[in-house]
């Protein structure tokens, strides 16, 4: 079973939370030279909305890496343009420009990087994606993600969905009809070594302050814990099932740190109304009404 840790972030002490969460999963950093960190950046909505990884969390992670590996280790922060988000603007608006200056680390828009075609299969589906060299060549890849509870079909956005954001192709909405398959393919082709969750603020039916951090080396197990926290059965999430079958990780996990009971009743779960609206919206999407009604 894979280990997943859950720790409280006390009074914004991110560094302590990161170190504690890593200790709980018995993680020791390897002596490496080139590290990439993939924060979760969502459009132009900053960390206070629960959509984006807090730059301070990433800054503290950089401190930990420099202390525990080497002060001279090369660290790059990576993100790619999305259907609606342009990295150049997002870096500035979301506070990452400032972080990069403060910590003297480069901000990389993966869409501007050299990449190579790579092909994998998910079930019987063959999927080809571009894989940036900077990710391929990194000695250590760290996924610094968020937890967001969303609509069908994916239900949650956490570690695995964040790697979908490494695909260096802006118009990623084209993958949405087969999103689960592409999420798994992206994770197979760009396997990250360590996942950390900035769980200060969680976005779900409501935005909620949770002040927690999570860590695991198994992205499937981490996502399974994130799902379970919100009362979503991990086995009902298609991409987790597929990832498990593909050997990317395990849905079964052993959690350490904050006991489950702590989360009872405090997670931002969706009520009946939200569930109904979600279903109705899904139907609207299926009927392509947005375009027909020119609402997009």
């Amino acid at each position: 079973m894979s280990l997943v840790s859950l720790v409280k972030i006390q009074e914004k002490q991110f560094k302590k939370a990161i170190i504690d969460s890593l200790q709980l999963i018995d993680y020791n950093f390897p002596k490496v030279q080139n590290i990439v960190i993939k924060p979760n950046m969502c459009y132009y909505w900053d960390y206070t909305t629960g959509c984006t990884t807090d730059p301070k969390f990433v800054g503290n992670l950089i401190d930990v890496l420099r202390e525990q590996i080497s002060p001279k280790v090369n660290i790059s922060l990576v993100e790619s343009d999305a259907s609606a988000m342009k990295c150049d603007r997002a870096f500035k608006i979301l506070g990452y420009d400032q972080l990069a200056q403060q910590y003297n680390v480069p901000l990389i828009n993966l869409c501007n990087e050299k990449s190579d075609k790579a092909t994998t299969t998910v079930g019987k589906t063959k999927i080809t994606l571009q894989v940036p060299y900077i990710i391929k060549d990194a000695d250590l890849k760290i996924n610094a993600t968020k937890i967001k509870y969303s609509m069908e079909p994916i239900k949650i956005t956490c570690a695995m969905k964040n790697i979908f954001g490494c695909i260096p192709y802006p118009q990623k909405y084209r993958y949405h009809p087969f999103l689960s398959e592409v999420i798994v393919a992206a994770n197979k082709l760009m396997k990250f070594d360590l996942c950390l969750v900035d769980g200060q603020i969680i976005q779900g039916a409501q935005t909620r302050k949770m002040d927690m951090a999570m860590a695991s080396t198994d992205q499937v197990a981490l996502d399974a814990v994130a799902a379970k926290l919100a009362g979503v059965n991990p086995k009902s999430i298609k991409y987790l099932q597929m990832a498990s079958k593909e050997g990317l990780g395990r849905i079964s996990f052993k959690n350490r740190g904050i006991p489950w009971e702590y989360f009872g009743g405090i997670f931002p779960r969706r009520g009946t109304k939200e569930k109904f609206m979600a279903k109705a919206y899904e139907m609207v999407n299926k009927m392509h009404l947005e375009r027909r009604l020119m609402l997009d």
Partner: protein
Amino acid sequence: MKQLNLGLIGLGYVGKIHLRHGTKLTDAKLVAVSDVSRNALAKARKTGVKHTYLDYQQLLKNPDIDAVIIALPTHLHNVCALDAAEAGKDIFLEKPLASNPKEGEEILRAVEKNGRKLMAGYHFRFAPPFRDLREQMLNGFLGEIQTATATFVGAGPMIMHRADGHSPRPVPSWWFDKKLTGGGVLMDLGCHMINLLRWYFGEIVDVKSYLGYRFKLDFEDHAACVAKFVSGQVAIFHVGWFSLGHQVRVELFGTAKTASAEIVPPAKIIHAIQLLMGKSSQFYLPHFLELKQFIHCLKNDIPPSPSGMDGLRDLEVISKAYANSIQLE
């Protein structure tokens, strides 16, 4: 009476709204559209628009077109409105009138020189809740208004609303260029609140502003302003692009009573159902009503309101607000 033929220039966010309404007007017909996107023009043709042009100059050369709706990015308002006036077309020009008062004055001069009509696009003046509130005030139900607040906070160009919350959409690059927009949220949303408050209380004699830069861009993304009106009222209006929430609200504080009005965006699913049932969405009703008013003014030779001068006054207030910005410790 001859049916009026309309041309629509620009098929961006608000242009699409006008396109939908333009085909539903009873005493005018939208016969032509212009946009730089072939895809947008193809969609417009499917709604029944007869002529489509990639170059708006070609639309202006069409002698069958009596008036144009200009729904272009702000920096193109001036040049397009001047061309339209020279071409002898009456003009419905989306807010803000121009990037700055100087360009606004040029538009007004060109319209006057060519004997055309100009209406500024401020749809909130046609929103039933804000009209009702003004009626209450004018009928004296509230006593004498001493102070007022007006709020327009949302995500500005960076959002659209839907049933489950919000969905991102690409933001055209001109929004991030202050030279093209003429400013930040004060230009985009502030002009609405200024226009609405001026409609309630008359001209603004003084204004001071606090400008905020949460996004660290070179234009403000939130602002709080205090304005004094010639009629003696003082209003506080604040606008912002920083929120996933959405609020457009006016509150009037009178000696007899207080009252408020607001516009709430519908859940997208409700919105879609309304449209599927053939009903006009309540959210876009004010846009439809303002277009109807424009047609009414043209047909009956009435000066349109909000006028081009209203649009210019709003720009002057914004300029003053920028000049009178204060720092807070």
